[in-house]
C-alpha cells in the first residue's frame, strides 16, 4: 500500500473495493445483530419491468471483488424479475478504452457503468450511448433530484442513471483525540479552524493531509471553493469559463492556506503531508488509538475501508461530520458511477429502469460500501450509522451538490499525477504563501489542457 498507484481511478477503485470488503466483514462480525436491522430484508418492489425471457444482456463496470459481488446481487434480482440472462464483464480501469475497442469491434456491451462524467459525455457525443426510453425516464424523474438527472444528460437528453454515488464532503475524526482535547464537531470554517487549533494545542496534529496523492488536494480545494464562491462560479471554473487567476480562486486558496499554512494543524508539517499517501493519512488518524498522529482526515465515503484497515471501528473510534461551511452553505461535492445503454434494446433500457428504481439501490445499500443518490432508497437500508449519515447528507443537498471538478476537467489538467491541478496544489501545500504564483501556474496549465 506504500506504493501509490499510478492513476486516481485505480486508487479509488481499490479503495472502494476495500471499503466494500471491510463493511462486509464488519457486517459478518456482528452476527446476531443482522437479523434485527433492516439489512437483509427483502428489497421493495416498486417498479414494473417487462418480461424478457430468453434475452441476453452484457453489463460492464470497473468493479471487481466485493463490489462486483454486490452488483451481481442487484443483477440477480433483475434476472429473477424479468427472466433475462445478465452477464457481468469487468472493464479494467480504462473504461473509455475498453468500450472504445468493443465499439470498434462492433460488439459493445449493452450497458456500461461509467465513473467519470466527462467520459459519459464523450460516449453520448460519439453516439455510442443511447438516450433513455420513457419508462427509464419516468423512474429517473421520480427518484432522482434534478441535479443528478442533469448530470446524466447530454445536450438536454437524459442518457444515464447515477446508480452509485459517493459523497466527497466528509471529515472523519478520531473520537479519542477529540475527547482528549474536548473538541466539538464544527459547522463552519472558522469553528473548524478553532477546533483544529484546540486539537493541535492538546498535542495531536489536527488534520492528516494525503498530499502525496494530488487528487486529495483537488478535493480539498473543490469543497472550499464550492462553499465559498457558490455553485455558479464552481460550474464556470469547471468549464474554464473563468480563469484560475480569478479573485474567487485567490480567496479559496487563501482560505486553504489558513489551514495548511498554520503550524501544528497539518500532521507531520507540510513536508510530512507531501510524503503521505492517501491510505497513510487515514492510518495516521486511526492507526494508533491511544496517541494518534492526527485528529482528523478528509475524504469521501471510501475512507470507511481504510478506517477498518487501520484497525479502528467505525461509529466507535471513527466518526464523520460534513465538510464545514466556508460560505453560506456547506459544500456537497460528489462522484459517482453512471449507467448508460450502449445498445438500444428493450433489455438494456429495462435494466437502466431497474437501476433507477429504489429496489436496486436498496439491495446494494444493505450489503454496504454503497451510497445511493436515489432519494427513495430508505436510510434504514444502510448497515450502520455512519453510512446512513453520509447518505442523508447527500440526499439533503438536493440539487445543490456539484460533481468533482477535477473529474470534469481534461485528464491532463485534473486527472494525472505530477501535472496540472494535482501538481499545482502540491506546490501550494509546499508553500501556502505563494497564492499568486500558484494561480498563474494553474491558469497556464488549464489554458493548455482546455485549449482556450
Amino acid at each position: 500500500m506504500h506504493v501509490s498507484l499510478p492513476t486516481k481511478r485505480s486508487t479509488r477503485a481499490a479503495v472502494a473495493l476495500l471499503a466494500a470488503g471491510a463493511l462486509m466483514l464488519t457486517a459478518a462480525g456482528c452476527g446476531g445483530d443482522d437479523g434485527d436491522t433492516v439489512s437483509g430484508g427483502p428489497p421493495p418492489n416498486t417498479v414494473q419491468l417487462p418480461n424478457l425471457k430468453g434475452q441476453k444482456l452484457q453489463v460492464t463496470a470497473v468493479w471487481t471483488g466485493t463490489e462486483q459481488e454486490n452488483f451481481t446481487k442487484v443483477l440477480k434480482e433483475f434476472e429473477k424479475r424479468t427472466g433475462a440472462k445478465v452477464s457481468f464483464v469487468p472493464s479494467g480501469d480504462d473504461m473509455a478504452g475498453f468500450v472504445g475497442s468493443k465499439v470498434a469491434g462492433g460488439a459493445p456491451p449493452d450497458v456500461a457503468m461509467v465513473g467519470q462524467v466527462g467520459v459519459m459525455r464523450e460516449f453520448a457525443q460519439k453516439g455510442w450511448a443511447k438516450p433513455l426510453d420513457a419508462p427509464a425516464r419516468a423512474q429517473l424523474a421520480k427518484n432522482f433530484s434534478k441535479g443528478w438527472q442533469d448530470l446524466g444528460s447530454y445536450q438536454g437528453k437524459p442518457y444515464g442513471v447515477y446508480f452509485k454515488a459517493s459523497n466527497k464532503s466528509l471529515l472523519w475524526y478520531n473520537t479519542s483525540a477529540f475527547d482528549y482535547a474536548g473538541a466539538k464537531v464544527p459547522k463552519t470554517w472558522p469553528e473548524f479552524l478553532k477546533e483544529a487549533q484546540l486539537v493541535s494545542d492538546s498535542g495531536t496534529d489536527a488534520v492528516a493531509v494525503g498530499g502525496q496523492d494530488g487528487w486529495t488536494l483537488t478535493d480539498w480545494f473543490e469543497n472550499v471553493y464550492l462553499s465559498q464562491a457558490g455553485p455558479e462560479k464552481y460550474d464556470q471554473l469547471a468549464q474554464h469559463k473563468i480563469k484560475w487567476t480569478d479573485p474567487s480562486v485567490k480567496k479559496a486558496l487563501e482560505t486553504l492556506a489558513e489551514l495548511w499554512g498554520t503550524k501544528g494543524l497539518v500532521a507531520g508539517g507540510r513536508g510530512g503531508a507531501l510524503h503521505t499517501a492517501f491510505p497513510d493519512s487515514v492510518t495516521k488518524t486511526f492507526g494508533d488509538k491511544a496517541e494518534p498522529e492526527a485528529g482528523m482526515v478528509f475524504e469521501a465515503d471510501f475512507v470507511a475501508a481504510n478506517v477498518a484497515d487501520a484497525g479502528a471501528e467505525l461509529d466507535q473510534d471513527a466518526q464523520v461530520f460534513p465538510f464545514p461551511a466556508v460560505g453560506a452553505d456547506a459544500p456537497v461535492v460528489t462522484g459517482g458511477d453512471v449507467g448508460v445503454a450502449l445498445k438500444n434494446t428493450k433489455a438494456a433500457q429495462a435494466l437502466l429502469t431497474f437501476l433507477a428504481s429504489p429496489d436496486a439501490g436498496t439491495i446494494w445499500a444493505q450489503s454496504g460500501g454503497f451510497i445511493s443518490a436515489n432519494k427513495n432508497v430508505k436510510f434504514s437500508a444502510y448497515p450502520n450509522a455512519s453510512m446512513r449519515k453520509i447518505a442523508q447528507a447527500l440526499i439533503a443537498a438536493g440539487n445543490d451538490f456539484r460533481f468533482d471538478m477535477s473529474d470534469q476537467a481534461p485528464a491532463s489538467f485534473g486527472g494525472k499525477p505530477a501535472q496540472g491541478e494535482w501538481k499545482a496544489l502540491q506546490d501550494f501545500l509546499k508553500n501556502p504563501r505563494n497564492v499568486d504564483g500558484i494561480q498563474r501556474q494553474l491558469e497556464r496549465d488549464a489554458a493548455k489542457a482546455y485549449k482556450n
Partner: protein
Amino acid sequence: MSTATADGAATPGRASSAPPANGPSAKKPKSVMGTRPWLAAVFLLPALVLLGALVVYPIGYSVYRSLFDASGNGFVGLDNYQEMFSDDATKTAIKNNIIWLILAPTVSTALGLIFAVLTERIRWATAFKLVVFMPMAISMLAAGIIFRLVYEQDPDKGVANAMWVSVHDSFSESPPFPGAHPRPAAGTTESSSGAYTTNATLKAGSPTSLPLVAAKRDDISDAQDAKAAKPEAGKVTGTVWFDFTRGGLGKEGAIDKGEKAMAGLKVEAVKDGKVVGRATTAADGTYTLPAKAEGAQLRLPAWNFSEPYNGIDWLGPSLVTPAIIGSYVWIWAGFAMVLIAAGLAGVPRELMEAARMDGANEWQVFRRVTVPMLAPVLSVVVVTLMINVMKIFDLVYIIAPDPSKDDANVLALQLYQSSFGTDVNQGLGSAIAVLLLLLVMPIMIINIRRIRRESRR
C-alpha cells in the same frame, strides 16, 4: 543488382541464367553474390521484412508523426519540437538524462571492476559473485518497488533511513517535549533553527512565565500541576507550563487550575547574543536564573522540542535522481562484474607476475597493468550501460513519488506521459522519441566503430 551481374559478366550466358525457371544453372556452383541475386534476395527477405516492419518503419513513422498535431490530422511542421524545447519538464528530463548518463555507467563499472578484481583473490569467489549478480535476476519493476520501500521516509518502514537514524540517534539524547511550541500570542520569536526567544526582557523579582502548547499526551500525562513561580529578590524566576485545558475552557496565557507543568526543559537567558544564565525547569515547571539574567531575553533552545530525527528525505526533490541511480547500480553492478571478471580471466598472469617481480605494489599493478589490459572490456561495459541508461524508464516511474516525479523526470518517462492516456499529444511524444534517437546515435556510432576496429584486428 547491376553490380552482381557485372561480376558475373566474365561468364557468357550468365544474364540468361538469372530467370528463376532456369534449371541447368543449378549445376554450376557460383559465389553467392555472383550468382542468382534473386536467391540472395529471397534469403535476405525475412530479415529485411522483420527489420523493416519492426525497426525502420516505426522510426520513419515516428519522425512523420512528430510533424503532426495531437489528432494526427493537422500538419504542424516543427511546432512539436519547439514545444518540446520550451517545456520545463523536457529540460529537466534532458538534464537528468545527462546526470544518469554520467553517473550510472561509471559507478556501475567502477563497482563491477572492484568486485571482479577482489573476488579473484577470495576463497568463496563464486558465492560472492552469485550474490552480487543476483539483482540482475529481478525485474526492473520489482526492483523499483523494493527500492520504493528502502527509501521510505519513515524509519520504521524504510531500511535506508532506519540505518541512518540509528547511527544518528546513538549520538544524541532525547528531548523532553518533541513537537511542543509556545502559544503564538505569548510574544516569542522563532529562530530558523526552531529556538524560541521572548520579545520581552527578564526582570529580577517579577516572574516571567511562558505558556506552551502541543505537548504529546505521553510526555505530559505524568506531570505535576503547574505552579506560579514566587518572586524572589535578586533572582529571575518564572514558570513554563502546558497552557491547555480540555475544551479550550481555560484562559489563554494564565495558569489555570489543573494545567500541567513542563519539567526538564532547558531555558537560557540571552543578552546581546550571549548566554548569561542557564537553568532547567523543575517538576512544578518553575525555573530560577541568577541575577545577572536581569535585562536578558528568555530563550528555549530548539533541542527541547526537536521531533525525533526522521532521517534523510531520499525521494525529495534534491536527492531523488541520485537515489534512483543507486537502485540502478544495485542491479547493474553485478552485470559489470561478470563481464569484467570474464575479461580478467583472459589477462595473462605473467604480466602481473612480472610487474610484481619488478617491485610494483598491488595498487601499481592494478593501475598500470590490470586496468589497461581490461580497457576493451571496460569500454564495452560502459557503452552498453550508457545505451541502457538512455532509455531508463521503469525505475523512475515506480520509485519517484508524485510530488517529486517532476524532479526525477527523464526523457523516456516524459515521452510516455505525453503520449499515453486519455488527453495526450502523440505528436509531441514522437518528437521526444526522435530526440531520444538522436541522443543515442553518437553512442551507437562509437560502439559500431569500436566493433569494426576490433574485427579488423
